[in-house]
Every structure is written in structure tokens, then in C-alpha cells.
């Protein structure tokens, strides 16, 4: 067996051929370390790695690297997220070296939501490089031991490189090519946007498989259980690039009072069952936003426990 790229738990689980299961945890809007530990605690033992978001939706929170280190100390494996919105290429490369030095082994590379959505819309955005170039930067640093300027790095950061893919953004026909582009730029694994439109996702993954992309990279399907009809409507109308079919909204409505959340979880479980069998899907990325305490139950009911140790 060839050498690991970073030797992270996530990489080992995927390499061993297990169906991966990752979670997500947003850092607090403050320095409430106890709250962060409590939220993350629910995920312990239930997932292979935990995405730590980076000023998600452009709202200021505890830095993703710091929160990642706290998770690491708590015995979880963080998947450190980095966006290009807030840092130029100097800060990006220095943060990559920093997180690796402190023990982080998984990193997700993103462009980042525009600051217009956040709580500092007046801010200047950076976007010195884009997510594609960020993936390529991490790969160049890791595999060639070089900075963006070509200068040597004495001890290169060994990270398992993640990227995002939104099959539901447009133009749809170009999406699979953009995924391919991220893989050639250096992505080792992909986490998709939350999937609700299964027909469209089946078509997307079929195209990815036809191009052989699933053999070059691990694709984790994004799942976010709906907590309420209000959440479904919000996702459908307000969140850019989200595709929530009316049939799902109807189904949630039909569940009746007090039973919508359970119906949302049931839909998520059905999705996970299908993903387990779907060619091209190597795992599930569960984004239970502010619902971390439900993750053990969902993991259990999805047949994801116990998590493999490799």
C-alpha cells in the first residue's frame, strides 16, 4: 500500500474502503470554549472527522484554526476549513503551515460566501486567489515542498486536501467539469453541498462516474436534515445555490404538528441508505447545523456506528 498523504483518520478510513461519515461544528460567536467543547462532544465517536467552519456566511466567529485545535485537544479530528475571502496568499500559506504544525491533518479549501451575507457587509474582501488556486497551493506546498513563489519549504505541511462541490449551482452542465478541475488541482476528497434534489444528484454523480472522477477522489455526499418547514422554505428561497424540491416541502408539511423534525431525519436516513449503495459516493458529510446533539441518534439509526478504526 502506498504512503498516506497526511495519515489523517479520514484518509485512513477512506483508503481502507470504509463508507466515511463526517460531521460539522461551527465555532462560537465569542470565546465560549465550553460551549464549543459541548457541541463537539456530541460528535465524538460518531464521525471520522469534524468540519470546523471558517467565518461561515461571513459572520465573525472564533477562528477556524483555533476551534480546530480545541477539537483536536478534545480527541476529535478537525477538518479545518479555510476561505479565500479573508486572507491574501501570504496569510493563507502561513496559516497552512501553522495548522499543520499544531497537528491538523485535514483541510477543506473554499472561496467563501460573499461578505454581503454576513454581519460586516462593509468589509473589504480579499479573494487574492480563488478556491481552485487554494487547492493547488496546498498541493504544491505538500507534494513539491514549495511556496507559491517557487521557494522551498523546509518541512512541508502534509494535509489531506478537501474541496467543496455544489451540483445544484448553475450552469449545471459545467458543474461536473468544475469538479474535475478541482480534482486535477489537487483535491483528495470532496464534500458536496446539502443534497435535497436526489434526481439531479443522481445525474451529477453519474456524469462524475462516467468521467472516472470517483476513482481519482473520494466524494462525500452532503446531508442536512430539515428541522422544520420554515427551515426548508428558507433553504429553498434564501440560500444561494440550494435546490429544495417542492415534493420535499410537501412531505414535511404532511408530517403533521410536532413530527416535522422526525420526518426530516427520516428523509436524511433514506438518503444515506441510497448513498451507501450509489456508485461514486464514498461517504456522507452530515451537516446538522446547530443540531449537534442529534448526531449520535442519526449516526446510530443510519447504521454508521461504531466508526471504524484503521
Amino acid at each position, binding site marked *: 500500500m502506498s504512503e498516506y498523504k497526511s495519515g489523517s483518520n479520514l484518509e485512513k478510513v477512506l483508503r481502507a474502503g470504509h463508507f466515511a461519515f463526517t460531521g460539522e461544528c461551527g465555532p462560537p460567536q465569542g470565546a465560549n470554549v465550553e460551549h464549543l467543547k459541548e457541541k463537539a462532544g456530541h460528535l465524538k465517536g460518531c464521525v471520522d472527522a469534524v468540519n470546523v467552519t471558517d467565518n461561515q456566511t461571513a459572520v465573525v466567529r472564533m477562528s477556524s484554526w483555533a476551534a480546530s485545535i480545541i477539537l483536536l485537544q478534545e480527541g476529535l479530528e478537525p477538518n479545518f476549513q479555510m476561505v479565500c475571502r479573508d486572507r491574501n496568499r501570504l496569510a493563507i500559506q502561513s496559516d497552512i503551515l501553522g495548522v499543520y504544525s499544531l497537528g491538523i491533518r485535514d483541510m477543506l479549501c473554499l*472561496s467563501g460566501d460573499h461578505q454581503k451575507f454576513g454581519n460586516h457587509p462593509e468589509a473589504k474582501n480579499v*479573494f487574492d486567489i480563488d478556491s481552485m488556486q487554494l487547492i493547488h497551493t496546498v498541493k504544491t506546498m505538500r507534494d513539491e515542498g514549495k511556496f507559491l513563489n517557487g521557494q522551498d519549504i523546509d518541512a512541508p505541511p502534509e494535509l489531506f486536501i478537501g474541496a467543496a462541490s455544489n451540483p445544484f449551482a448553475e450552469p449545471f452542465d459545467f458543474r461536473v467539469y468544475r469538479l474535475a478541475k478541482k480534482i486535477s488541482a489537487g483535491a483528495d476528497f470532496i464534500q458536496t453541498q446539502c443534497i435535497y434534489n436526489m434526481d439531479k444528484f443522481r445525474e451529477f454523480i453519474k456524469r462524475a462516474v462516467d468521467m472516472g472522477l470517483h476513482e481519482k477522489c473520494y466524494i462525500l455526499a452532503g446531508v442536512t436534515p430539515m428541522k422544520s418547514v420554515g427551515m426548508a422554505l428558507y433553504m429553498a428561497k434564501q440560500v444561494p*445555490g440550494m435546490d429544495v424540491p417542492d415534493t420535499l416541502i410537501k412531505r414535511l408539511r404532511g408530517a403533521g404538528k410536532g413530527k416535522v423534525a422526525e420526518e426530516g431525519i427520516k428523509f436524511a436516513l433514506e438518503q444515506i441508505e441510497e448513498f451507501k449503495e450509489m456508485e461514486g459516493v464514498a461517504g456522507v458529510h452530515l451537516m446538522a447545523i446547530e443540531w449537534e446533539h442529534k448526531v449520535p441518534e442519526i449516526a446510530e439509526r443510519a447504521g454508521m456506528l461504531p466508526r471504524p478504526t484503521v
Partner: protein
Amino acid sequence: MIVAEPKPIKELLEMVKDFNRILVVGCKGCVTVCNVGGAKEVAILASSIRISRKKMGQEIEVGEHTLERQCDPEYVDELKDMICDYDAVISIACGVGPQFLSERYPSSKIFPGVNTQFMGGAEEHGIWSERCAGCGTCVVHYFGGLCPIARCSKSLLNGPCGGSANGKCEISKDVECIWDLIVRKMMEQDRLDELIEFKPPKSWITARDGGPRRMIREELVK
């Protein structure tokens, strides 16, 4: 052209509230074309100021003059015999105008009468939009002749991002996603392969990021 919009009259009145003799200076360049700073707008602004000040019981003398261009010392010179007659000057050229006036006439107080917006063009009469961010190294040929630096909200060179839907940008339904247009155009022209190619980080040295810019064309310098 450089596109600008008028500053609110209230803001301008506040700026010149302590002066009783002011000169409004227009420009026959871009700001004339985008109907904000030409001779016609000079006349309109001058009379609005006069009327407002009259109502306030604080009459004012407002001179009017429009230069061929305010970004050229040769034309700016034209003001030399009249500018000393005024306590203050409002330039309604783009941001270059008030600065050229300030530099040429160090003792005059110069105020900007417009908000300079962007480099762009007229989509139709009365509607302008941005096209170029002056990055200093034009690359539009890679993108079907369209500029993602000026026109993508994130200046992505490897777009479109995950927020593109219905041809609109994630930031607003009123903003087109330039990457949607780029992809469609390149696919129509059967140039998908060019778009799939990785575009490396751009050098911003030639852009504003490299510091204020200056250009010397030796062959033109006397």
C-alpha cells in the same frame, strides 16, 4: 468611460455653507457622456445652489465653467484668471478633476460634486454598468471576452462558485453572474477545454495593489 453619479444637493450645500462665491466646473469628457458633469449639469447644479441658498436667506454667487477635460493640465490652465474670484470650487468631473484642480491651484478650496463609480459603459440610455477594474494586465481573452475580475463578486478566475443560480450572482438577484455568461459562451464556441484549464493565481502587481500607478511612455515624453 468613467461613470459617476451626482452627489446629493444637500451634501453639496453643507460643503459650501461657509462660502458666498463659488465656481462650478464641469468637464466635457466621460462625465458629459454619462450626463453628470457636462455644461448642462453645471448650469443645473449652479441654479439649484442659487435657489436653495436664496430660500435659506443666504444668497450666493455661482460661476459656471466647463473645461474640455479636467485631467489635462493644458485645459485646467484655462481657469487661472477666474478661479481667484471665488472662495470655493465644486468640480463635477470624475475624481481626477478635483485633484488636478487642487494641484494646479494650491490656494483654492476644491470640492467634489460627484461620486465616481466605475469604468464601464451604457447598457441603454440611463443604465450604466461596470466592465473593467483596471487590473493592469488584461486577461479577458481567456474568458470569452468577459472580465471576471471586475464583474464576478469574488473575482474568481476558476468560477463559477457554488452560489450561481438562474444566471444571477449569489449576492443579489439584480446582479448577473458573469461566470454563467462566460461558461455558456465558451461552451457555445466549443471552447470548454480552455475553461477546464487551471488558471493560476494572478499577479496583482500591475493593479492598485502594487501601489499608486504611473506610466511613462518614453517616445511621447518631450
